[in-house]
């Protein structure tokens, strides 16, 4: 009974299998490429949501700046793709051929130093993973060592999201400004704009998503995951059991940052551009809401929450654009007030017991959500 903590229990494995069936078979078989690409776009946000489950749900650290990491990943990828699209041959009409078009428009005559290494795909992939991790490490270590947490951490991460947005918009010669980095074409010569490429990329992304789910599941099932939960509950006790609370929080924050960055990079590939509108305060909070709707404690819930909210957003804003914001706002409030554990909580407390009929009531999850620490 107390053997090595299994990677996942039976119902979790079943849940993963159902998700795999949905993403790998049902959706690709029933949706056209346009819709499938839309699903792919939504799924990129679920990487962020999974990260938030670890760092907010389990660890109690709410970051309102996940868009920063999504953006860092996305921009790294976009820089590589843009350089490939800006070959001397493609840009010969520019006054300086061989540099991205927006640089040329802003009278920049040489490729900036920071852009140079993004000619290499290997460097780009490493950067996608390492840049956000280092950034999160610096921010996390600085704040958690001084025991800044809770609301203050949320506000400061939000400010960082605002800063990065203003910076990107303001430095348009280097970043493409408000329009972002657009007109991305090929990946190592492979045209990513074709239907076929989108179809293939969808599966690449789903593979990455499952890698991410497994990684998150591994972390949560490890002793580290239990320490995160313990920390959210009784931070002092963890400290007096001999752990450095700041290090564990920083780790959770870094892990969430890396997940978000992978999502951002895939977003750039799927959608074909990256812009500051995915970096700032509004997208960052929306990503938190996907997590909250799915259930802040459930990895799979985060995926479903993201898919559902985005699907609702698309269909609502197509038919009743005025109602969408009202609906989204009401959803926030309803989830927070009535269902703090989101879809996963509803599933676990109301649906599952009826399905299994075993009548083994789980602990009410509301109690868990209430324990998310204040400061």
């Amino acid at each position, binding site marked *: 009974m107390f053997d090595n903590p299994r990677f996942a229990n039976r119902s979790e494995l079943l849940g993963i299998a159902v998700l795999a069936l949905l993403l790998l078979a049902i959706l690709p078989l029933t949706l056209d490429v346009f819709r499938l690409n839309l699903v792919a776009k939504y799924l990129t946000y679920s990487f962020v949501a999974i990260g938030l489950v670890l760092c907010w749900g389990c660890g109690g650290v709410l970051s309102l700046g996940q868009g920063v990491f999504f953006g860092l990943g996305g921009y790294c990828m976009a820089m590589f793709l843009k350089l490939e699209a800006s070959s001397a041959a493609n840009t010969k009409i520019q006054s300086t051929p061989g540099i991205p078009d927006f640089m040329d428009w802003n009278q920049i005559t040489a490729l900036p130093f920071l852009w140079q290494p993004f000619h290499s795909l290997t460097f780009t992939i490493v950067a996608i993973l390492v840049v956000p991790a280092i950034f999160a490490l610096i921010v996390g270590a600085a704040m958690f060592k001084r025991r800044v947490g809770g609301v203050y951490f949320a*506000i400061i991460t939000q*400010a960082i999201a605002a800063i990065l947005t203003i910076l990107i918009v303001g430095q348009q010669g280097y970043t493409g400004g408000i329009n972002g980095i657009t007109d991305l074409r090929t990946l190592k010569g492979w045209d990513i704009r074709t239907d076929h490429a989108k179809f293939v990329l969808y599966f690449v992304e789903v593979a990455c998503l499952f890698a991410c789910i497994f990684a998150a599941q591994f972390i949560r099932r490890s002793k580290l995951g239990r320490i995160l939960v313990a920390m959210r509950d009784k931070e002092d006790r963890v400290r007096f059991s001999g752990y450095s609370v700041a290090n564990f929080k920083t780790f959770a924050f870094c892990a969430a940052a890396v997940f978000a960055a992978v999502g951002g990079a895939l977003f750039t590939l799927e959608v074909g551009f990256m812009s500051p509108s995915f970096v700032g305060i509004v997208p960052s909070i929306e990503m938190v809401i996907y997590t909250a709707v799915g259930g802040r404690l459930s990895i799979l819930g985060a995926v479903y929450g993201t898919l559902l909210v985005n699907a609702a957003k698309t269909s609502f804003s197509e038919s009743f654009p005025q109602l969408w914001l009202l609906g989204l706002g009401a959803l*926030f409030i309803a989830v927070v007030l009535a269902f703090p554990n989101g879809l996963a909580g509803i599933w676990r407390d109301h649906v599952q017991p009826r399905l299994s009929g075993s009548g083994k009531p789980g602990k009410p999850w509301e109690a868990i959500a209430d324990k998310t620490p204040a400061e």
Partner: protein
Amino acid sequence: MFGDYSLGDLAAIFAMQGFAGLILFSVFLLMALGLAIIFGQMGVINMAHGEFMILGAYVTWMTSNFFQAYLPALFSGYFFVAMILAFLASGALGMLVEWGLIRHLYKRPLDTLLATWGLSLILQQCYRSIFGAREVGVDLPQWMLGSFQVTDAIQIPINGVFVMCLTILITCAVAYVLYWSRWGRQVRAVVQNRVMAGAVGINTERVDRYTFALGCGVAGIAGSAFTMIGSTGPTSGQLYIVDTFLVVVFGGAASLVGTIASAFTISQAQSTLEFFLSGSMAKVLTLLAIVGILMLRPQGLFSLKVRK
């Protein structure tokens, strides 16, 4: 870099720049005052604070239209009526929100943040549906237009001076209410020790409700004042929220003096930097400096030293 200007020009530029900084200071302080009550005193994160300001702005706009249409003779004084209406409207909405939403979440501050964000989305959409998506601006009465001609080169806009005076007035009023009135004593007692405040006979729930309403009402006045210097749209409130929170947190959440000092520091830093750099870089550097300082000194500029 000053080579192209004469000494007189430079003096004028600095004077104007300094005055622009003072207006920015007024704006920051007005925005932050309401939040200093709600977040600083009560510890509630109200992400819809900007929308409460915008409500005040829209009320002012409607009042101005009403006066133009029905009481043109009194138009020069409409603003004072508008300000009171803005205070009442935002305050009433605040009371409703406290009753329906905030009071259930006092023990879950992070959840308050999410719920009030949802509220801000709803309010934005309401504004858009009622007032339209386009920005609206009010017509200023004649006496507020134009500027004082201090010297040949230095002009000081009257509406700017008006906003500054208003800021000083409202700051004094808030300080009076919090620190010298009977009501303020109850607020501070509840903030320091909710249980004990109840045990000396203070109705803590009522205090919470009215305090929240007061903060929202002050936000409404701030929004009303902003119509004097700019136009208002449904999403204008969202632009302010990060700045506002940073002003309050940077000052040291529980201190009104801190809020004033921090609004002053931030506004002067930003307007000075704006002279040397592009607007966006000035903003980025200012925000970065604040975040950096907050990482080193999380308690903010002014922290109250109290024995627990």
